[in-house]
């Protein structure tokens, strides 16, 4: 069973050839550019990315609305996010991402609610601006403690020529400069969720930063102020990260955007350093803050003790000895826990192979956590990554790793069938396909409703979950004893 790297490369190359055979010629040519076998030493994974998905192939991708409402804006808990357009988009994304927050839902927090303009035919024909105005009035009356409103555009808005910017400005004026943010994240824009992240980032820049002015003049900074950027607090990830930063002596003045608030967004330009977890979805605003406010940013990875240690030191390197000592103290404090976790789970997971297909940062970031448990990632790909993601991936993957960008349902199924990994980590749409095939699976977007997975507390849960997925007795029972 032990294949050499050359064997693996050969197998993967022929596997790619094989899956391409199913496509019409034109499609095969295009898909070929998204599939590759990683050659160590190369500066990137040598695949095309961030280009249009082909029609009819069963892409796993979502849309710009999902990237803005579902990812970036939705978790800001004290604002009301209107899904502007027909009812479906808001309905399918309603509370499904587990962006944990603390607050009185419906009163001062609105995260797990679905506000929609529920467009009807007449709104399409006559436009929805008047309706939007009225919606904002009704929100103000019924939800008086909301701190702001965002308008998350669904497909029709851009097509029918509504002027949500004008409505937002007008209503903001009417309500004493209230934060009202129009977001042009119509689902047909761009090629995936990714453009939605970018548009949402730009909306923060234009409609929050540029308008917040002296809203919190009394907010006093310290030399140790940081903001967590790009952690959506899925299952509490941002919390199990924040606690480490605070323990090392930093002051976390904002969380973007899991359990986040408008005030935190507004005060972020006062941070000394932005610490960026999901590069893909929030590098834009980090770069903007660097240019405009001179705030440096640093990427970090809080999956698994090896990467957490390296990241804590990297973050600390931007501060004085007090913080550097703090980082060492935190690392030492949790070492007993992580050693015990690894001692318990590594023997059960050693040598197990994993194939991933996820979004954002996870196709690379979780690799270290698997390796801490003795596991090996043999295939990975991004739902909506760009070339800079594939460059960063080279720091994580091994020679011969199978790389698949914007994988299609067909390709993923065939790859897994042939590679036979011990675990697949992907999303809800993929989960049951692979479980039917008898392959253990964990959802790596939602942590399969578990979590947190970030930080040291999260790593223990991650290890437990991977063990329970792979070593569940059910996988020994998928075939009836009388069948061959």
């Amino acid at each position: 069973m032990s294949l050499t790297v050359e064997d693996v490369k050969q197998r993967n190359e022929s596997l790619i050839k094989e899956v391409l055979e199913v496509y019409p010629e034109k499609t095969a040519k295009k898909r070929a550019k998204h599939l590759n076998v990683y050659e160590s030493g190369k500066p990137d994974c040598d695949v095309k990315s961030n280009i249009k998905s082909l029609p009819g192939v069963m892409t796993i991708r979502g849309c710009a609305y999902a990237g803005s409402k579902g990812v970036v804006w939705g978790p800001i808990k004290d604002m009301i996010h209107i899904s502007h357009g027909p009812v479906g988009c808001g309905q399918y994304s309603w509370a499904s991402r587990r962006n944990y927050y603390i607050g009185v839902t419906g009163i001062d927090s609105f995260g797990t609610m679905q506000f929609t303009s529920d467009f009807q035919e007449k709104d399409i024909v006559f436009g929805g601006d008047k309706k939007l105005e009225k919606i904002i009035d009704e929100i103000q009356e019924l939800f008086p403690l909301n701190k702001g409103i965002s308008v998350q555009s669904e497909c029709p808005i851009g097509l029918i020529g509504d002027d949500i910017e004008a409505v937002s400005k007008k209503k903001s004026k009417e309500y004493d400069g209230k934060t009202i943010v129009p977001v042009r994240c119509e689902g047909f824009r761009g090629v995936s969720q990714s453009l939605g992240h970018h548009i949402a980032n730009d909306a923060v820049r234009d409609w929050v930063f540029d308008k917040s002015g002296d809203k919190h003049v009394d907010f006093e900074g310290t030399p140790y102020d940081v903001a967590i950027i790009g952690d959506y607090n899925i299952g509490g990830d941002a919390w199990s990260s924040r606690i480490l930063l605070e323990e090392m002596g930093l002051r976390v003045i904002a969380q973007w955007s899991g359990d986040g608030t408008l005030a935190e967004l507004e005060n972020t330009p006062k941070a000394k350093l932005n610490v960026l977890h999901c590069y893909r979805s929030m590098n834009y605003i980090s770069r903007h803050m660097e240019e405009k406010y001179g705030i440096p940013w640093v990427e970090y990875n809080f999956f698994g003790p090896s990467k957490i240690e390296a990241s804590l030191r990297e973050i600390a390197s931007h501060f004085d000895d007090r913080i550097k000592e703090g980082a060492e103290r935190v690392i030492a404090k949790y070492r007993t826990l992580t050693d015990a976790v690894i001692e318990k789970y590594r023997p059960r997971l050693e040598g197990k192979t994993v194939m991933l297909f996820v979004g954002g940062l996870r196709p690379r970031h979780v690799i270290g956590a698997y390796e801490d448990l003795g596991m090996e990632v043999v295939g990975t790909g991004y739902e909506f990554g760009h070339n800079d993601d594939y460059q960063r991936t080279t720091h994580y993957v091994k020679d011969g790793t199978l790389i698949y960008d914007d994988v299609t349902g067909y390709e993923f199924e065939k790859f897994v069938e042939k590679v036979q990994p011990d675990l697949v980590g992907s999303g809800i749409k993929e989960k049951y396909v692979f479980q039917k095939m008898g392959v253990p699976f964990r959802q790596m977007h939602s942590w399969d409703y578990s979590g947190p997975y970030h930080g040291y507390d999260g790593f223990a849960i991650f290890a437990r979950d991977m063990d329970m997925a792979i070593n569940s007795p059910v996988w020994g029972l998928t075939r009836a004893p009388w069948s061959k």
Partner: protein
Amino acid sequence: MSQSAEKIIDHEMLFRQPEYTEMFASKKQNFEFPYPADKVTEIRDWTKTAEYREKNFAREALTVNPAKACQPLGAVFAAVGFANTLPFVHGSQGCVAYYRSHFSRHFKEPTSCVSSSMTEDAAVFGGLNNMIDGLANSYSMYKPEMIAVSTTCMAEVIGDDLGAFITTAKQKGSVPEDFDVPFAHTPAFVGSHITGYDNALKGVLTHFWHGKERVANNAINFIGGFDGFVVGNMPEIRRILTLFGAEYTVLCDPSDVWNTPSDGEFRMYDGGTTKAEVKAALNAKATILFQGISTEKTGKYIAETGQEVVSLHHPLGLAGTDQFLMEVSRLTGKPIPAQLERERGRLVDAIADSSAHIHGKKFALYGDPDLMLGLTAFLLELGAEPVHVLSTNGDDHWAAKVQTLFDASPFGKGCHVYAKKDLWHMRSLLFTEPVDLLIGNTYGKYLERDCGVPLIRLGFPIFDRHHHHRFPIWGYEGSLRVLVTILDEIFEALDANTIDTAKTDYSYDIIR
């Protein structure tokens, strides 16, 4: 540090530990600029008042927490019910990712469906090329016997013409000329998921029946409508019709493909109504629509072919199931099977055994309009009071039907029906006119939390309880299951309310 390798705790308990609760308090106080706690309490209390209810019901533009989804979701449901059929949604691709996720979260099963992935250029030039390439790709890759096309709102707004596009795609060789590509326009800004089911199903029937001559026979067709319990219900319906010895066809049956085994093989297609069955179904004597509101246009189309159409509204319980069986008996000319009569007797028996626990209990319920009619009738039959019956996608005609049910029962007095309302309206109803129990889908749990009313999960979607959809809620056996589901919640609530040692536990009885 509260985490340990011996006893690993996840989000449920981890964040209650002092290191986290202190962190939350400090975050709130120092960085969130929150409203003062008494202000939050004041507003929270205000939302429970009659004054707030009045403002809430005066809403004209804003919808909050609706109990409906959009048309294409229903269209995908309908497409999935046909054998070896690939649902194909023409428009933006994110929509399809949402439908697939939504169904998979409910059924805990894969849902295969493709999109034509239209983007900005298609918005300008139309999605013809997306249709041409999309059909060619999906035909080669997924080898369906049929591709059922529906639309997202993007394609509808720009006015793509499916019929013309499919014809052109065939001319360009995307799929063979004689390959079946039924279609339906399913704009998300009209109706709801049940409308999409209706349109898509009608599209399939029209595709196979149009221009064909009908030679009537004695068979009957059964159409279930959009149904979250379809996996359990369809086999039950087949059992019932088989007991009758009826010659029947279920038109649209996703109960196999959403219920495949884990045995090492992924079945992208499984079961479903075959094309031969659909074609032959034109000749049936009659069609039973189990959820008439969910299949209004389909029913009308079928009636135009000359078939008798029997439109029911999700019949449940004794009278409802009686009606269904008597219709089957009348249409097939076969007597009600003795086995079903025994099952009826057992349901009566169970109701008699337990009715004291349900009699006079007040219920609030919400969901799809047909389901609401069936449940309302069943609750009235149980001597319960369906005080608030609400539907986001039910209209005034539906409301009138519910009112008729109220009027026919002494238990319907003081009950009200709410058409085109959402769960934020329901919240006001539950605060101002409290009830004992709530029936709804998973999202009802937020009402359970806010208003303290126990939730019974019947409807779609149900994400947070597993496998109930695998069991039927139709027929006498299914109704028994509904009864037990309601009873379980009543007993759970009673136990929870009497569990305090030395305070209330005298009533914490071992026999109920």
